[in-house]
């Protein structure tokens, strides 16, 4: 069962120019660091744990491409995204770069998510992360509070999905049943 210790500043660099820090937090996931890293590197497994993931595949240039959906207020926003892992230091740290264009809505977004994985004993791993975001067009008009709220729910769902995936791989049930805050995408 993941838990939420006080926020830290492990990823202490300022947001790149033209981007805003959206979120900085830590959470503890029930799973070994190496197992979590293996999921991160496996597109099929990632597709299962990413909330709202409707498609995900490795592109010829090594990046991942797919379709993600997220609830933004009462709207469901579907976006074509590409993602790449940079500055990888397996299985300790990396930076996830995500770029996307929402369907139907005009505009784009780019998220840079540096994260670190630290073992916390008893098969648990602490994930420290920060989300820096640049949005344009329609998404920018929603304002950062809405986007922050959405991102928090996505991270909570991602942690839950990750624990389910790790438990399934280990052939055991998750340590405790949990309901993601986001009930899912209709």
């Amino acid at each position: 069962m993941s838990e939420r210790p006080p926020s830290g500043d492990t990823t202490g660099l300022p947001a790149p120019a033209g981007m805003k820090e959206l979120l900085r937090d830590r959470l503890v996931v029930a799973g070994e660091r190496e197992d979590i890293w293996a999921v991160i590197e496996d597109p099929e497994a990632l597709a299962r744990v990413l909330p709202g993931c409707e498609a995900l595949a490795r592109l010829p240039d090594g990046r991942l491409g797919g379709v993600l959906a997220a609830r933004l207020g009462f709207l469901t926003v579907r976006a074509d995204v590409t993602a790449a892992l940079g500055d990888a230091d397996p299985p300790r740290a990396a930076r996830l770069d995500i770029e996307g264009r929402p369907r139907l809505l005009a505009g784009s977004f780019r998220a840079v998510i540096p994260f670190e994985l630290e073992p916390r004993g008893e098969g648990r791993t602490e994930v420290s992360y920060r989300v820096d975001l640049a949005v344009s067009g329609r998404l920018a008009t929603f304002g950062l509070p809405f986007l922050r709220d959405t991102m928090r729910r996505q991270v909570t769902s991602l942690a839950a999905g990750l624990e389910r995936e790790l438990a399934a791989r280990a052939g055991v049930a998750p340590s405790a049943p949990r309901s993601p805050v986001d009930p899912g995408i209709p």
Partner: protein
Amino acid sequence: VSLRAETHGLRVRLDDGLELRAAQVFDCAGLWADEVARMAGDASFAIAPRKGQFLVSEEAFGVDRIVLPIPGPLGKGMLVTPIVFGGLLLGPTAEDQEDKGDRSTDPATGGRILEGCSALVPAVAAARAVRSFAGLRTVSSTGVPLVRPSSVTDRLFIVAGVRSTGLSASPAIAEQAVAEAARLRGWQRPRHPIGAIPPERVERPTGRIVCLCRSVSQGEVEAACRGILPALSLDGLKRRSGALFGDCQGNLCAVETAAILAAEHGTSIDELGRSRPGSTPFRAAPALRGRPGPSPLRGEPSSAAEGSGGWPSVDAGTIVTEVVVVGAGRAGTGAADALMASGVPALVLEHRARIGGDALTWDAEERAAVASLTDARSSGIAVLTRWTAVGLARDEGVWTVLAQGAPGTLEIRTRAVVIATGGYVMPREHRAIAGPRPAGILTSDLLERATEAGLAIGSEAVVVGRGRTAEAACGRLEATGCRVVARFDECAVDEVRGATRLSGIRAGGAWWPCDTLVLADRLLPAPWILRGLGLLDMRPGVAAPAGPDGRLGLPGLWAVGTCVEPDIDHRGSLDSGRRVGARLAAELREGRLTA
């Protein structure tokens, strides 16, 4: 107009003379439920209006959920509520009154709303409202909501006085009312519980940008017109799509939005209402009535020709250029003119179908600059009209400008960007003007767009403002047969009257009968594209934070004209655009542009 109880039901007569007989009648007439019941002889209750005034702020102040105090005897009190399209709803007040038609707002109460809401969220004290409005709750004299048979006959079922919870509770209340009536009548009724509305799965092309300040696309507006509960009026469209609801309050986009709404419903723009019957904001200009051929009032407005001005059309894709100028008003034209003179290749993006801003206000030199840019096709300058820049991103010293047009999305990679997005006239909703919200109050921006689309606005107008913009507004009104009955240099209007259409304004201590008020005085900057970069907050009227030389805080990013200096005049805009263009060209030539 009448309800009469009979042995096996009720006889209902409508105002057009039609008579209906029904075994069961439900009285769901809201504020008028008591008057409907009285027609049947039921005087067991009265309904009184309780007004709630609201303010709307585009800035969210970090609030991502509803913040409300502990409820008191009059209800929940003032709330701070995030709006689904972004921004905050502040209020409401609770003001008991007698007039069931009075939805007016007043500036003093707006101040009390800010005070009340800032007690919950202190930062809200700095909010700048982009709109105020009022709604009326239905308060029952019995002190409780009424969901019961009438005291005269159970053939009449009363559903009234549910106050502000009525909207969200209405599906459940309807279930209860129908179940109770079915029990009384002995109806065998299969249950059809109201389920969740299935989500809209059909994805349409995004299309061009319609609502500039909120980047709402044509695809979104069309989706709102074709949804499960399709938008039928401009207000309905606003609530479903968020268009018409941003900083300009629809003055920049109402004509184009109305054209799409009209096209979707196979009607004409001048037949569309803003909300209630009689609230039609536009009518056909006399010269256009009976005009042969396709009506310019149907479908797209007349200025919608793609690639007009002789510029080549462009498909979605990627373009690389040296400089992008966003906006081709005076400042953008000046910047492009200077870049052209220096031989620097540039791409100019213009949301509208033509360049140079309002042609009625050009002087000779401005006209020459526009002509020079129009003839610049072989000089390394390209102008894309009806393409809207919606986003900026910078990566490894290269700017990417995202532009949206009818064919799709264009990605333009460039070394430098000049923001020359101009401004808009402060709409009525930002001003301290008391009274209701009838149709007929607009800015010169909307007047310009409406008249260019062959639409007229009213018959007797008051114009606020001086200078070329106000003169052009008067000219446009007169050309469409609207008489200007009064002019004021500054906005001295402190109150308006009118139910669905404006009937008069109070200015300078006197009432002026009129059906149209045109505001052409105070310009606000429109640098909305910079919000996504975090260079601006969401408050209206905040100028692009450019230095005296036009530089913004990021390398290669410049801004000029009204979006920086809202008080700059037309000629000043053109000249400052030229200065920034020349400075930028020099930096590029000398390789001084820092990456």
